[in-house]
């Protein structure tokens, strides 16, 4: 990374400069728009050349850290390598140039791709069908809870509450609210797990669902998942699986056998589609047979003659969640990734779990581990020992940048004060893991021996510590001409 000031593109602007070229207009310049509905010039909009634009975005990119710069330990986000073939496949003109409302007969390739991806995800989850519609994980959650609501309504009562463990992602409670439910939080026990008796007490007849992340955000697998499912089902509720951590067991175990009724997957996590600095995501949702009628429209169907079509005529559906059919370009990338592993995809989970356990073993003497249950794909330390020297997780995060690594997740999970949530993924080999471990060990030493160094960190990034409070106090959200 290089420290350098790069002006805003608008500040690079010079009157009359152009970077684009269009063919000359080859029809009469006749417009129907009445004069009073036409705008004037877009004042302030950029006037720059192509080389201005090229340099601008190259310089800006150097102020980012990506996975190809090195290990990206951000817990819960599954920052794995994005294979380059996937990018090329999504850009095949037949895919990238196709229109969502082109006649069905001219988009059979797209439809077959979606149909195949659905079958694969159904096989991996052990559930009946998968909707590919949701735009991202959070919308997948909403789709899932709305399907549950619809199924309960059919029996006369949508119920009132959704149970969510205190270790859950923030999207879970927000989703439940948007689906019209009230949230009841379940306390995790001292082992970071859900207590069956706590669940039994909370699981009343007015509870629609338990939303549970598997493994949970502490990287711990609920050993008694089947009993948990039994308790929920016995009271007529549904078990919602948040599949954000699917990378821990994909290809080895399946949600259907766990008793999960509905589970969303984040294709940008487990299935390697790029995070892209914050999207696009895609959040397919797998459902058990009894929820199939309630899947959002459209669904992808196959006729007896082998042709495919989008079905929007489904009377018991929760309805439509977006325009068009799916995050298609993201689906292409995910399928490309899955095909590269095929039936060996379980190796991904094994390597991811091995890597997380290795980091745990190499750092457990220096960093506090609040919960010592077996670690799956991620390990959550805390800053308890470093805090004795006045150094907190946020300081460790900033200091790690000086070692060239993005920080672990520090804002989360809420039940670990000063959390340092580390997820190495299967992408890394031992040398990369060792380099990260050495950086973390060195930081632990610094915390003991020269804690004063942390206040100024990071020292080597393009900008020094950013004043976020000031941004919120006096929001400047755009450049002005």
């Amino acid at each position: 990374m290089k420290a350098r000031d790069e002006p805003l593109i608008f500040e690079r602007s010079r009157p009359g400069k152009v970077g684009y070229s269009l063919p000359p207009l080859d029809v009469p310049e006749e417009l129907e728009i009445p004069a009073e509905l036409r705008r004037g010039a877009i004042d302030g909009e950029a006037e720059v050349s192509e080389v201005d634009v090229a340099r601008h975005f190259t310089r800006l990119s150097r102020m980012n850290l990506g996975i190809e710069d090195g290990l990206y330990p951000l817990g819960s986000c599954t920052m794995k390598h994005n294979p380059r073939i996937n990018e090329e496949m999504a850009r095949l003109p037949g895919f990238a140039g196709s229109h969502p409302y082109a006649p069905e007969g001219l988009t059979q390739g797209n439809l077959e791709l979606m149909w195949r991806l659905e079958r694969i995800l159904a096989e991996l989850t052990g559930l009946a069908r998968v909707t590919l519609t949701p735009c991202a994980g959070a919308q997948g959650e909403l789709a899932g809870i709305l399907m549950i609501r619809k199924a309960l309504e059919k029996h006369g009562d949508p119920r009132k509450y959704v149970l969510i463990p205190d270790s859950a992602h923030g999207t879970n409670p927000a989703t439940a609210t948007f689906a019209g439910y009230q949230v009841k939080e379940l306390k995790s026990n001292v082992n970071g797990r859900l207590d069956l008796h706590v669940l039994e007490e909370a699981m009343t007849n007015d509870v629609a669902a338990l939303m549970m992340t598997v493994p949970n955000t502490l990287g711990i697998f609920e050993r008694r998942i089947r009993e948990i499912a039994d308790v929920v089902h016995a009271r007529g509720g549904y078990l919602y699986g948040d599949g954000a951590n699917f990378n821990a067991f994909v290809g080895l175990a399946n949600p259907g056998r766990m008793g999960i009724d509905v589970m969303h997957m984040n294709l940008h996590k487990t299935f390697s589609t790029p995070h892209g600095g914050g999207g696009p995501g895609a959040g397919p949702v797998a459902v058990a047979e009894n929820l199939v009628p309630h899947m959002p429209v459209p669904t992808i169907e196959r006729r007896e003659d082998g042709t495919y079509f989008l079905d929007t005529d489904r009377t018991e559906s929760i309805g439509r969640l977006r325009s068009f059919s799916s995050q298609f370009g993201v689906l292409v990338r995910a399928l490309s990734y899955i095909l590269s592993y095929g039936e060996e995809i379980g190796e991904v989970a094994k390597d991811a779990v091995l890597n997380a356990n290795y980091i745990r073993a190499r750092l457990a003497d220096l960093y506090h581990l609040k919960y010592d249950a077996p670690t799956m794909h991620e390990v959550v330390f805390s800053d308890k020992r470093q805090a004795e020297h006045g150094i907190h997780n946020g300081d460790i995060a900033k200091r790690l940048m000086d070692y060239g690594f993005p920080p672990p997740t520090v804002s989360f999970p809420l039940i670990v004060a000063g959390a340092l949530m580390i997820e190495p993924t299967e992408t890394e080999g031992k040398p990369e893991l060792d380099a990260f471990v050495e950086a973390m060990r060195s930081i632990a030493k610094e915390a003991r021996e020269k804690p004063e160094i942390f206040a100024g960190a990071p020292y080597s990034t393009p900008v020094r510590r950013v004043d976020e409070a000031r941004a919120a106090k006096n929001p400047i959200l755009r450049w002005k001409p």
Partner: protein
Amino acid sequence: MLAAIGAGTVEDLFEDVPAAVRTEHKPRIGKPLSEIEIRRHLGALAARNVHARHAAHFLGAGCYHHYVPAIADQTLYREEWLSSYTPYQPEISQGTLQSIFEWQTHLALLTGMEVANASLYEGATALVEALLMASRLAKGRHRAVLSKNIHPEYRDTVRTYFRNLSFEVVEVEDEKLGLAADAQTFAVAIQSPDFFGEVHDWKLAKSAAASCGAMAVGVVAEAISLALLVPPGEAGLDIACGEARSLGVPMSYGAPALGFLACRDAHKRQMPGRLAGQTVDSEGKRAFCLTLSTREQHIRREKATSNICTNQGLMALCSNVYLSIMGKAGLRETAVQCAAKATYLKKRIAAIPGFEIATAGPTFNEFAVRGPRTASETIAAMAERDILAGVPLSTWFPERGREFLVAVTEMNPRDEIDRYAAELATLS
């Protein structure tokens, strides 16, 4: 590594996963494929589609075929953009943050609004978020009034979201917006150009909303129009939202797309989704970070303004590159070309016996055509002539079986438009 862990085998690390939930066999999804095989496999699927490069393309209805300069897509290949995470840690994300800040500026300039967010999923959900935002701004009211000329899939999506939120959606003809809006109404929304291509005066929404103190919402599904038409902000609307994919993002069978939401400065704290803001670092140097995040789910949980977590980062970046390179002159020229070429084709079609224009008012780059037979028949016959002639309205409006939407952009050269008209004439 196992020795360091103190485990005998990798299997030992899975001790918490009960045998009963394990799969009994490897997943039945085929053998691993090499790059060559993946290319062959997916290449064969892609080849089964007829797409914009080997047919004359006149499809729109919310997804338009526009030019994407080479530099826009190529920028996405840099790994610092492709594989970086959401910029929660600003010191290692200044590239992403500055790009978002710039995109917010572009969208504010285009919509005539004071602020825009970092992007939303796509157009339909952007309308949902705009309406939910309006419900927070006009607190205590429970009704949204929507024009029937808003994209039908946007309206369907609103109904799905609102069903469980004790809000009511009323959909009316444009001329009845004022009648439908009352003291219980928190938003009045119209689309321009509307789903059928007609350009409206945004004041239609403004006056209906102003009469009862509701928020006026402008929906834009063809963002290139913003470079030529009076934008919602300039017309005094409170919120602008919709689909910005036309600004540099490929069609890709509809998505990933690029939702946007822009509003008045006074309303920014009720905006959903991510926002990048300008600040300084510890040395006083300009820097950017995500801000006002106390609105969001990762802080507010069940009290958040939305459950939304991602934006469309890569698409917003691609669009920032597009908007920068097209710039003030290129955006205008693109919009003028779209409008002029559409006018040209519209006149040619209107002159064909048996065909008539079914969109009454002025149009930008899209209009509905009524033909002598079902639209599906017309479209199929044109497809045989390598022309993707339009989108049948019967998909959403069964009673409009003979009508189809035709969109024209800067990508359609005159000879292609002439061929369209000539071939359509053979079907009269």
